[in-house]
């Protein structure tokens, strides 16, 4: 049986599944239940200075896609709304009761050295395993020059990380905001500041929808709305990309992957791109803590099938295959194949290719029965038909003999800036 135990930035946990800093980790009651359900660790809901912040009524928005709820999730909540000493006392108690689980505490205080020093001393005293610096919250806190207001300025990221490393012996994880053009800039700043690890992503600035009767963005608070933070299944591709960029650009920096993770497969993808642990928020808010049991079981079964004994056996294996576009082989060729036995004759591949791609699918009738067939000479192997087809395995992309040796854009004659091999 595969061993799921991890050591991340010096913090040990029985499995790589942590709950992200958010409502699921808001208080002892939730965290204890999460540990009972099997979560390897939690990042406690972000603490701040007293007096606590105040939350609104109506806090969440969600995107429903084709009848499926929760395709994307958005919130306008702030950091913890409970007094600091209450949180600290609970953290101390939980850590004492469950020393085997990872307990990291998320922090956000103003950009003043004394403030960070003060809270770090108090937090360290609880016996927790590490701290996570919340440089990501994109609403409410950023207007007060905290959260993503810090995360968007690499100099601040470096400065605050530096303070934390000076004033605490705990591992420091810097949680990054995705509301930025190049994730490497704040990641490098965190590294320069001495961060033990980064975690990402926090939420994306968003408006999930507009109430067309009230004429206000959702969620609506007394007739008004504000932008919130977007998360859930819809943000996973954004998170994977950012994790991969850091894994490739800053090898060796531990990464805790976050964003749209709900199954062991999602988690395995993050780990394959370099993450050492993963954190989950929305999926737990959707279904409860019980989702972790299949995450553990499924990951372990898959690892057994693949022959991976531990997380490190496959962590980062996909990173080497994450290359720049200009390094892709332009002579690689595939052609779509439609399996007539599986085809249900919905015509979706046909109309997609005909109207918006390469007119490479023929719509035929044989004895009145529809048949769709790829016109090999026209197919550019774009995969569109494959993606619009509702039937698993009906359309496949069949590799073709290459018309010549591997050639990348860097070497291609059409590239005015091509690198010509030295003679």
């Amino acid at each position, binding site marked *: 049986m595969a061993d799921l135990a991890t050591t991340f930035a010096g913090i040990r946990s029985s499995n790589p599944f942590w709950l992200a800093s958010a409502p699921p980790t808001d208080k002892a009651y939730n965290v204890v239940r999460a540990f009972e359900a099997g979560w390897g660790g939690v990042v406690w809901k972000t603490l701040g200075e007293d007096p606590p912040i105040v939350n609104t009524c109506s806090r969440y928005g969600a995107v429903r896609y084709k*009848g499926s709820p929760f395709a994307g999730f958005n919130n306008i909540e702030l950091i913890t709304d409970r007094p600091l000493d209450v949180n600290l006392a609970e953290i101390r108690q939980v850590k004492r009761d469950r020393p085997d689980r990872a307990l990291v505490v998320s922090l956000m205080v103003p950009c003043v050295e004394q403030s960070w020093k003060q809270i770090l001393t108090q937090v360290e005293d609880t016996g927790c395993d590490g701290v996570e610096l919340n440089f990501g919250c994109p609403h409410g806190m950023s207007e007060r020059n905290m959260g993503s207001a810090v995360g968007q300025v690499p100099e601040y990221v470096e400065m605050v990380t530096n303070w934390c490393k000076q004033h605490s012996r705990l591992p420091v994880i810097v949680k990054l905001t995705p509301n930025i053009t190049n994730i490497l800039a704040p990641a490098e700043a965190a590294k320069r500041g001495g961060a033990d690890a980064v975690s990402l992503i926090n939420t994306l600035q968003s408006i999930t929808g507009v109430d067309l009767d009230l004429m206000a963005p959702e969620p609506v608070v007394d007739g008004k709305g504000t932008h919130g933070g977007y998360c859930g299944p819809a943000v996973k591709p954004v998170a994977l990309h950012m994790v991969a960029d850091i894994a490739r650009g800053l090898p060796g920096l531990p990464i805790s992957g976050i964003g749209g993770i709900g199954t062991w497969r999602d988690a395995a993808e993050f780990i394959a791109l370099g993450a050492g642990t993963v954190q989950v928020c929305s999926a737990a808010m959707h279904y409860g803590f019980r989702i972790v049991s299949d995450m553990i079981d499924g990951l372990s079964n898959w690892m057994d099938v693949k022959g991976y004994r531990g997380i490190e056996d496959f962590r980062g294996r996909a990173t080497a295959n994450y290359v720049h576009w200009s390094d892709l082989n332009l002579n690689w060729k595939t052609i779509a194949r439609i399996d007539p036995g599986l085809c*249900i*004759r*919905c*015509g*979706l591949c*046909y109309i997609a290719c005909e109207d918006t791609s390469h007119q490479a699918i023929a719509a035929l009738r044989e004895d009145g029965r529809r048949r769709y067939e790829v016109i090999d000479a026209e197919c550019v192997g774009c995969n569109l038909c494959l993606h619009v087809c509702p039937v698993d395995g009906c359309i496949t992309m069949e590799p073709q003999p290459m018309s010549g040796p591997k050639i990348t854009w860097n070497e291609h004659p059409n590239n005015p800036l091509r690198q010509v091999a030295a003679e």
Partner: protein
Amino acid sequence: MKDMGESASYLDRTRLASVFAEAHPPLDHHPALVEASRCYFCYDAPCVEACPTAINIPQFIRQIASGNLRGSAHTILAENILGGSCARVCPTEVLCQQACVRNAEEGRPIEIGALQRHATDWLMHHEPTPFTRAPTTGRRVAVVGAGPAGLACAHRLALHGHDAVIFDAKPKPGGLNEYGIAAYKLVDDFAQREVDFILSVGGVTIEHEKSLGSDFDLASLRRTFDAVFLGLGLAGVRALDALGETFAGVRDAVDFIAELRQAGPDAPPTIGRRVVVIGGGNTAIDAATQSRLLGAEEVTIVYRRGPEHMSATGKEQRWAQVNGVVIRHWATPTRLLGSPAVTGVEFERTRADDAGRLTVTGERFVIEADTVLKAIGQTFVPDPLRMPDGVALVVEEGRIRVDADRLTSIAGVYAGGDCVAGEDLTVRAVQDGKLAAEAIHRYLAG
């Protein structure tokens, strides 16, 4: 419940209510959205081809999913103005839903009929007709028959600006929607509500209890109107040719159903204890099922061929069976027993020979019965078409002959629905009426 008397038990009462209760209740808002979201929005969709009125099904379902119920209903009604009753009575399992690509994928088609009902019900509850008439042309068209064919034709003519006058022999409009279709398919007086909805566009008047053949003839209609549409349905009932057809207790299933439909739950017709229904179509199923629900102890449908040959679909056969009806196949009636009242029916077993032809085997059996309902098919009665000038409308294989435009052998006279060749279905009648109206419109313009 006067016929049931004081002794009517609770069971009788609830059972009776179920005769008139809806067999398939409508979808609520949320299940409708979930069902609509299952649709793949196929291109060149097979379901559209399988709908006799060619409703743009993927489009109307997408409109339900997007929350545009008005648009959805409009998409439906633009092709089929009786989309509301078709949503309830169409045997979708052999029409649109049979063609759904989801069958091939997972054996469960989209519930197209239920979704169609969802959209049309919404519109009929919340909005007036979405149609407006073209400026009036002053042309007048006579429509004989206020069944689905006649109504669809008159509505389409009205949209084109012509005035339609419908003549119907019966006191109420709707044709078999009012007098034939099983009560549990069209509850709450839906047939009349739909007629009101259709007429609300204007330009259509109905003359009740006016019969072609007795109150006027085809020649006079041709003289006084610019064109004529015949949507007469089938007035005759096939005879059994089994000795004893005049015994008391032997009657036509269609009449029995019509009586039941008109009586309603307060004064339902009485039914015997042992009922034999002869036939294999919708009428047999409905007559048998409703006999059971009315309290008959034993109800047997006897059909001369196998289940796959019955014109009632598999779903309808199962519906009768779950209601306690026994269906016996491969037997044909040879003799009715009794006198003056029927006491049973003698049958002879049948089989198909190697060429598929029906033959009798000589083996006989008797089913005791105090009521025998004949449902072996309706026939077209051409008598009302007779004209004094001797000119006759051509009738072929028992139905009025028409071309693709639904034009009969006489210029300016069109026909459609059950009285012309084709499947005897509400939706087909609607399509005929629609096509004929378009042809009449072109004829009047020409």
